[in-house]
Structures are given as structure tokens and as C-alpha cells.
């Protein structure tokens, strides 16, 4: 896999070789499990993996465009934290006290169990947003390329 006689081993080169090998194995696994027939073409598979990898590994998941296009960005976020509040001026503080000091300690196990799953769902959502955006970017690039190649009408 690498030139043993070279005086220095390059980690980047080694990692490229490992990544290429693994890509081939992943493609074979996907086909064996009944994955899309397009994956018979190694170039197509590499291109698909490249787009998805860019979304998962290289993008800042906090900088997605989709939440900014929603009416209220907050709607796209799972609210994992607890906020105790009440609109009742007199009984409100008592209700908050009961929620915080009695109900929350009793229910904490359930809160913590749900929290981990909410976190995972939030992460999946963020990755899906990034994948969609990466595909939209790829599409925009291709559209521009097609337009340039078809020339002025």
C-alpha cells in the first residue's frame, strides 16, 4: 500500500490509500445488500460519497441555509432545555417552585433519557439539512455548467 523504502511515511498519503480501499469495500457491500444499481459504476459511487461526505464532515452544521428561510428559525430546533415560567402573577412563583423543586427531581430520569434521544434527533436533522444544501449547491453548479456549455442562444 505504501513505499516502504521511502525515508518518511506520509500520513496523508496513507489515509488516501485507506479511504480508496474502504470506498471500494463500501460500494461492494452496498451492492450486495441491494443498493442502487448506479453504484455499479465506481465513479458514480465516489461522486455520491463525495457529496455526502462534504455535508457530513466539512460543513459547519450551524450555518445551514434552510433554518434561515423558515418563518421562525426556532421552529427548526428541538427544544431540549427546560424553561420554567408562568403568566400568573400571584400563583406563578408557587407553580414554578413546585415544578422545579418537586416535579423535576421526580421526573429527572425521564428527562435525561429523552434528552439524549432529542440530541441525536437534532444532530440527524442538522446533517439532513446540510446534505440537502450540499445537493442544492451541486445542482446549481451543474445548471451553470450546462448553461455555459450550451452557449448563447
Amino acid at each position, binding site marked *: 500500500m505504501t513505499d516502504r523504502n521511502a525515508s518518511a*511515511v506520509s500520513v496523508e498519503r496513507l489515509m488516501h490509500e485507506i479511504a480508496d480501499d474502504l470506498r471500494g469495500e463500501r460500494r461492494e457491500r452496498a451492492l450486495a445488500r441491494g443498493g442502487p444499481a448506479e453504484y455499479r459504476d465506481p465513479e458514480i459511487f465516489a461522486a455520491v460519497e463525495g457529496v455526502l461526505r462534504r455535508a457530513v464532515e466539512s460543513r459547519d452544521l450551524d450555518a445551514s441555509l434552510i433554518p434561515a428561510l423558515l418563518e421562525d428559525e426556532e421552529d427548526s430546533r428541538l427544544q431540549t432545555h427546560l424553561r420554567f415560567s408562568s403568566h400568573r402573577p400571584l400563583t406563578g412563583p408557587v407553580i414554578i417552585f413546585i415544578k422545579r423543586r418537586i416535579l423535576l427531581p421526580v421526573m429527572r430520569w425521564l428527562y435525561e433519557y429523552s434528552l439524549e434521544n432529542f440530541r441525536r434527533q437534532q444532530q440527524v436533522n442538522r446533517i439532513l439539512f446540510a446534505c440537502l444544501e450540499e445537493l442544492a449547491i451541486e445542482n446549481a453548479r451543474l445548471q451553470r455548467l450546462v448553461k455555459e456549455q450550451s452557449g448563447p442562444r
Partner: protein
Amino acid sequence: MKLACVIHRFGADIAGGSEGHCRGVAERLAEHHDITILTTCARNHITWQNEYPAGLSKVGPVPVRRFPVVRTRSLHQFAEISELVFSGAASEPEQERWFRENGPETPGLLEFLERHGAEYDWILFWSFRYYETFFGLPLVADRAVLVPTAEEDPLIRGAGILGRFFTLPAGFLFLTPEEQALVAVRSPRPLAPSCVIGSGLEPARPGSAAFPAGLEIPTPFVLYLGRVDPNKGCETLFRHFLRHQPTAKRSVSLVMAGPANMPIPDHPSVRCLGFVGEAVREALLSNASLLIVPSRYESLSIVLLEAWNHGVPALVNGRCSVLKGQAIRANGALYYENFDEFARGLGYLLDHPDLARQLGQQGLAYVNSEYRWPQVMQKLELFLGSLSHPGHRR
């Protein structure tokens, strides 16, 4: 120069990364400068309980002035405010509350900075996430040099208030170029002058390879060194390692050396030693086939440098840009970003011992050229000398 170092806890028996870095730097600065450590009476980084006596004392060659912590940390309140801040939805007062809840809350130290800060030429602050630095640095910003020890963690993403904070110091000392880039991106203005100094290591002691009598370690073994904690990536490490076991070409054990904050899988290939002393640590590093660093959040992995210091190669989490950067710059470690890469990287290093040894030697050469104390201190002294002193600024 008259210097002060501000740190959340300090002591010869405290092993944390930023605390160790501060001690290493301070002890060497004390050889040429008038230096004082300003810190708390806390030893435990979870509770912040006062354990050291308040007032002046000495740790090695360094004078230390300690201030009492006014309250221990409420873990539930801290968890609640963390969830809010990390979600990115917290208001500025809520973000400030996070730093108060994180502690260790020592108003006496802030009063001291207000009264006596101007007596120092430079005040070095370690770790922006703690009370002393977050609330203390703004009081003496014109002479403050920040060692952020920043990681790509949910705090730096979620606390927008940090942008303004990063515009305050007169200078920055970073541990890696990745940390420098991370802080620069979060700051709304170009950063104050900065320097990547890294951290120093003493050369590994020869003859430290034998395990103490009575301690039997299965060989070959791969080593994890540090706190065994989900936040350090240990949950994923266990999952990857145990998933890899049935198909692995050769038998290898995973040895975990560090206090455990999570359940350890009951498996014959996993051995957890708990906290280990210096002699065992040295022997483990000398005998390991490779070191695994699974953490996603690092500002500099000292343990990776220690492995290279012993000529041991490593397999690191490539999703942490600092670890990936260190691996590539040193040509001393492979990295993984998913299970397939973990299994292949582990198998590759075990199946190619010559190549693994060469990676370890390249790591050692990198440590020799970049991470010895004389080089680190030379960079630091040059940097402090180049900063425009607050008394001379217009």
C-alpha cells in the same frame, strides 16, 4: 517583568491539561521574572470545594495566592443552563449565568485584580470557560494575555457572548493553529497579536518500560490514557473496538488507564486500570502497540505528544480538527472518522509493525523539534517582548 497567571485551580497534585500547562509555563517563567499565581482554594474540578488554605503559599518555585470559592457547583443547575446555552438559544444574561454556574466563583480574586491588576506588566489567563477568566479578564483587559484552550465544543458554538469576549485581550497564546483559527472565526474583529506556543515535554526517561511487580498487562495491547468518560469519546471507542473484535485478524487488548466516569463493558479484551501512577503510566506508554485518542474536543492532545515522546504511533479521532492536524503535521498517527476507518486503521497499524514504528519515530522527531520546553519558552518570551506594553500605549 512582573507577571501574574490566573487559573481556576493550581497544585503539584493537579493533573488537568490547562492546569498542567499553566504550571509548566509558570515554573519556567519564574526563572527570569517576578511571577505570582492567582487561583482558588479548590482542588476538585467537579464540586470546587475549598481544600487548599486561602492566602499566600508556594508550589515549587512559584508563589501562589489563593482565594476561597464562595459556593460549590450545583450539578443539576449547571446541566440545565448548559442545555440552554449549548442549544444556541440562550440570552446574554443566561450565557453569563453559565459562566457563573461553571465556577469556581471567587469574587475575592476579581477584587484583587481590580485593586492590584495595574501593578503587573502582563496577566496571563488560562481557559476562557472558567469564572476567573471570563469575569476577571475584562477588569485588566489592557494587560491581559489569554490562553483560551478552546475546543470545537458546544459552548463555543452556542455562547455568542464569547465573540465580544475574544476582542478584549491584549494578546493570545494558542496551543495549536486549529485553536487559533477557531477563536479567530468566533471573534467579530481581527484578533489581537497572537502566537502558537504549544506545550513542552521533557524527554522520556530511559529504562521506564518495566511494569511494577504484580501488575499483569496482556500483550499486545492498545492504550487509552486519560479520564474514561463519554465526553472524551470513550463510549464510541468501546462500541468500535468491540464491534471490530469478532472480525479482527489478530488478538489485541484495549487497556484503559484513567479514572472511570462511565460503565466499562465486561469483555475479556477490555482492561480498565483506573487511575495509574507515573511509573505505570510510563511503562504503559513504553509497551503499547499504539495509543488511541477518541476525543472530539481537544485544544491540544498532550497525551498524543506523550505517546510520540515514547516513539509510539497513534490512532486518533479525525473529526477533531486539532487531532487530525497534529497527526498530519507530525506524520505520526492515522485518523478515523467512522467505524470502517477505525477498524482499518487499527488493523493496519497492528499488521505493519515496521511502518507503525516509523510513524512513532516521526512523531518523536516532531516532538523534539516543536514541543520541548526551551522552544516553547523562547516563543513565549519573544511574544511577550513584542507586545506593546499598556503603560506605553496611547
